[in-house]
């Protein structure tokens, strides 16, 4: 076992090359709806049991199914009303199961990136060839249904194995979301090729908040606003990234959807906000800051108040 991921060296939040986002924006805000399918009868994995109850876990399966039947449509309407695009963390089998959902995403100009094939097919214990096969499947499926290239990656159910980031880079993935170690994009150390991390979030993520931490609805809006206000303020010094992961089966519920509406209204009312997709953030950073950050890291992170 590894004692640390080994994909990055320590980088203080000071003395870094200054990031300026397009249009002189100080913060890049991106929304990542996780559009998923959890299988009723998934195969066994040695390290993770898919359902808390015996199969069929009707309660938990159908809870997630709500997202595709009802929640997604509500979520998409609210985001469209605020002019905010999504970057879809997509279990790509959704393209085959529910192509109407993909059509709606494309109609709204959303990015599709891969969240594996199903959310019940983990990367734990997959061989590298098996990991490559899943990535190739994602690339082909996303291209076939949307005409888009596969640029981003979040391992299904965050079950990446030790070699996954290396395999991603070798397969031409441009950005990974498997690590939440920073509020800015960062170069990822991989054995071949080039990969960057783009900030995802476990803090303003509706699963930990609504499902694990029992967060009241109004608190959700307050947390999102507080996260935004701080990153917006810090963005005056150097551009920051705020990610809002969403799950239609939770935030798309009738008792919660207004909380997203209120949070987005707060964000879009500010100047200097770049409403971006994951792909756009990764591309801008790679174009203008990858080399500067790599050089700064290679030089031992000079600067700051030291």
């Amino acid at each position, binding site marked *: 076992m590894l004692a640390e991921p080994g994909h990055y060296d320590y980088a203080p939040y000071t003395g870094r090359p200054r990031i300026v986002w397009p249009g002189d924006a100080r913060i890049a805000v991106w929304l990542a709806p996780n559009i998923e399918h959890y299988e009723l009868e998934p195969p066994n994995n040695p390290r993770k049991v898919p359902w808390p109850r015996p199969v069929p876990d009707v309660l938990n399966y159908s809870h997630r199914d709500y997202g595709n039947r009802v929640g997604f449509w509500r979520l998409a309407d609210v985001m469209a009303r605020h002019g905010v695009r999504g970057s879809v963390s997509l279990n790509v089998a959704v393209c085959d199961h529910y192509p109407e959902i993909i059509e709606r995403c494309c109609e709204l100009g959303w990015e599709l990136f891969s969240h594996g094939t199903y959310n019940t*097919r983990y990367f734990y214990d997959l061989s590298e060839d098996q990991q490559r096969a899943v990535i190739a499947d994602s690339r082909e499926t996303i291209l076939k249904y949307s005409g888009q290239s596969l640029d981003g990656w979040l391992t299904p159910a965050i079950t990446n194995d030790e070699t996954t980031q290396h395999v991603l880079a070798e397969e031409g993935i441009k950005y990974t979301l498997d690590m939440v170690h920073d509020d800015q994009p960062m170069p990822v150390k991989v054995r071949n090729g080039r990969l960057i991390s783009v900030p995802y979030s476990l803090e303003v993520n509706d699963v930990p908040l609504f499902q694990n931490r029992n967060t009241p609805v109004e608190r959700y809006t307050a947390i999102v606003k507080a996260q935004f206000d701080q990153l917006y303020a810090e963005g005056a010094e150097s551009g920051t990234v705020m990610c809002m992961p969403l799950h239609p089966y939770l935030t798309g519920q009738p008792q919660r959807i207004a909380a997203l509406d209120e949070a987005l209204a707060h964000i879009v009312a500010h100047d200097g906000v770049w409403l971006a997709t994951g792909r756009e953030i990764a591309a801008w950073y790679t174009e203008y800051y990858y080399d500067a950050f790599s050089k700064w890291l290679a030089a031992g992170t000079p600067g700051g108040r030291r």
Partner: protein
Amino acid sequence: MSGPGIPNYLDYPWRRRGLDHDRFLHRNLPQAKPVVWPGKARVALWVAIHVAHFPMDMPRQPFVAPGGVDRPYPSYWDYTQRDYGSRIGIYRLMRALDARGLRATALLNAAVATRYPALAKEIAASQWEIVAAGVDMGRLHHGGLAKTDERALVKEAVGALRGAFKSKIRGWHSPAHSESMRTLDLVAEAGLDYVTDWINDDMPYPVNAESGKLTAMPLAWDLSDLHLLFQQHMDTSEFVEQVLRAFKTLYAEAAQTGSGRILTLTITPWLMGQPHRIRALGAMLDRILEHVGVWPATGAEIVDAWHAGG
């Protein structure tokens, strides 16, 4: 390091258009045919009450039902706290609903009716609808149950409730929303026509069973007092806030889409029937009922209206 992988892990036998089972079809709610409720109401208000019995010696396997006894045996606290619901809490709910002219649907464990015939009589006198909710909370329907055993469970529950009530029993709720792959076939076989376990929609939809069609009804879980108050330790005011928010969303959606919606108020006598909560329940109901276009209905009435106007 990466090992040899997991054989056949990337076979996807159900990867196809639609769902990964044949129980019902996928439906995108915005594309569902609009339904018109009686009186052109915008929102049907369905009050569904879990009237459950938790035996003190209930098994912990294959899992403990939400609200189930999980302290060491013999847990007098857990047992009596739940039993309070059938002795006191439910009568408070009856008074609150009666005062507002509302009839509930009781999701009734058969054990409650057989153990407490006095309560069964009161429920009948309130003209509540009876939905068969299995035998008791210790007798779960699940994948590990043999077909003959599960058939006997359904028969026992439905038979006991048919014996205790004159009104027709049409609906089924499996304790803890838990089913085996064949539960719905057995429920249809027992002559019931609507089911309430799958929490994947805001509106009814047709379900396949071996011996005919069933209708799925959207019993709330995320918005239930059992989930919010008991499992998530929310305050009563947060429960009320969430119900009213859901109502507001559904009420607006009904106007926008021209299709009726359903607010399912799923409540539990030993939770919302507590003295410190009952007035909040009444006030919440009043907030909903002051709106024009709210149709209070039982589950069976909603199923019938959906078939007539869907």
